[in-house]
């Protein structure tokens, strides 16, 4: 950012910037590191405290316990299922509606827009929503994790802006070749919209993966609970004093505590996200900028 000679001020500002950055990176990463080393440490030993830099008594049994626990494995299965099924469905449906909205000569466009925008700010509240879910038979049903999520209004607008910015000639050439709207959508528009789709898959996928509220309040069957929900269960337990935890020893093991199991669960829940998001960085940064006027 500076040309010519570097002044004293330059060095001071640089020092300040690098220091701030160092602090930011450390403060962001350390909590994750902390959870990782605690998950790799024997639970009973961890309860004595002092594990800050590396595991004192290394063990993989927390993870073994996690993968052997039917409650956690059910939750993992449900969470993976809803993410794999729900995410593409939502992306597909939302993009479809957005493509329609982006059409240049859409009749009733203003009305449609008003309807969508209004629904973003105003809602009937949780209880009527619950009643609607009930009458649709979605309560206690795996589909409650999929269907009510099918349309994402935020991404609806992002996608609409994106489609509108596509070069019109592309679409027109499709018409000229005699293709119908559906064909144009699938054969021409979608292949070109990969950055948008990648962004949406990431964000909606993360939302699905992390969700816990619907698992808590719209579902009663134990085997339909998600990872997020199980996490809350354990957290409520573990916010109790450590000595009380020691008393809650899991059957068959005197070294695993609910807390150490929770640590392993947190890593399993977070790891997929950590591995995926850096690769899609380019896309979602662009995605945040979708629809903005280039300076």
């Amino acid at each position: 950012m500076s040309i010519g000679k570097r002044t004293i001020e330059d060095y001071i500002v640089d020092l300040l910037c690098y220091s701030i950055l160092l602090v930011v990176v450390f403060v962001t990463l350390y909590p994750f590191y902390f959870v990782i080393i605690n998950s790799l440490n024997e639970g009973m030993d961890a309860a004595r405290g002092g594990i800050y830099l590396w595991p004192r008594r290394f063990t993989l049994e927390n993870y073994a316990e996690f993968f052997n626990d039917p409650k956690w494995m059910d939750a993992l299965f449900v969470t993976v299922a809803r993410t794999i099924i729900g995410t593409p469905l939502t992306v597909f449906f939302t993009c479809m509606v957005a493509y329609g909205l982006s059409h240049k000569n859409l009749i009733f466009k203003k009305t449609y827009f008003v309807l969508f925008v209004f629904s973003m700010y105003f809602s009937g509240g949780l209880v009527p929503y619950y009643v609607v879910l009930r009458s649709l038979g979605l309560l206690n049903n795996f589909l409650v994790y999929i269907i009510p999520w099918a349309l994402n209004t935020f991404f609806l607008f992002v996608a609409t802006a994106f489609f509108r910015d596509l070069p019109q000639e592309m679409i027109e050439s499709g018409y000229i070749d005699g293709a119908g709207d559906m064909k144009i959508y699938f054969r021409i528009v979608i292949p070109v919209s990969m950055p948008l789709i990648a962004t949406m898959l990431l964000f909606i996928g993360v939302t699905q993966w992390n969700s816990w509220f619907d698992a808590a309040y719209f579902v009663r069957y134990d085997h339909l609970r998600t990872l997020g929900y199980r996490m809350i269960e354990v957290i409520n337990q573990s916010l109790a004093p450590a000595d009380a935890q020691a008393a809650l020893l899991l059957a068959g093991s005197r070294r695993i505590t609910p807390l150490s199991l929770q640590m392993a669960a947190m890593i399993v829940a977070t790891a997929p996200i950590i591995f995926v998001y850096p690769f899609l960085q380019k896309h979602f940064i662009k995605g945040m900028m979708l629809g903005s006027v280039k300076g």
Partner: protein
Amino acid sequence: MKLNLMTGDLMMTDLSVFRVNQGKKRNSLLLQLKKQYMIQLFVLCGIAFLVVFNYTPMFGILIAFKDYSITDGVSGMFTAPWNGFAHFLEFFNDHMFWVVVGNTLAISLLKILFTFPAPIILALVLNEITITPLKRFAQTVSYLPHFISWVIVAGIAGSFFSQTRGVVNEILLQMNIIENPLAILIEPQYFWGLAVGTEVWKATGWWSIIFLAAIAGVDPTLYEAAQMDGAGRLKRIWHITLPSIKGAIVVVLVLSIGNLLGGGIGGSNFEQSMLLGNVINSPRSEIIQTYAFRIAMVEGRFDYGAAITFIQSVVSVVLIFSSNHIMKRISGSSLF
């Protein structure tokens, strides 16, 4: 929709009203509809979804003005007896009214105060870094917390701030700053700090993306010219970089204020209060949303809960439109 990050104008472009009867016959409207029936179908699927999941529940707002119980079912929403504004008056006279409203406002305002400057500063700092791999690494790391759910954050906070053997307490004890461990997770006086602190940790990196994008749009020759005129680094940042993100600042500020009752830019108040709140710190952690939630789901008073939620929705809508208007007056740019 176009968002101009430099000036902050968010414009709904292309809201062309359909042309009718401009010397054309009525039939042409039907003809046009027929031509674009597939497109219309695409949109109508979305509308149908809205009707089912958004607009039907809106009828539920009715129960805020009625004497309704869940046993009345869906039809009960229409047939239950009216009681006008009784529930609203009850809320204003509720002994928890000042507590929940106070907490909601305090947490939201504190969040705006602290989570607002942080992304801006981070963006400015990142912009000054010239070693690209380092910059890329720091950026990537900084938005990691955004993707982590609040449940996990609560879990991490549970270990970090624990009274027994928590990292934070251990460090403070070692450095002799305190004599006894602080019950950060339990006692009321820490909740606000906890909520704001975790929010800063989680949201800063993510929001810095917006500001970085705006900064990237600045013409580099401006910096060179300023340097020729003898402006140092800090002066250049103050006079060139900051004003260039005025638009982005306005956008984020309006969004934050509009979401005041929901909590900061991301609307995280509810999740935080649900996850980190407990019976003991509830004098500081209970907010309007969690209170309404408990009233409805725990106490079963759905009509009263609906009234509280309704008040909140209305206030939020008023807030976002008025904050947008005020911003327009003050700075010339606005959200819409």
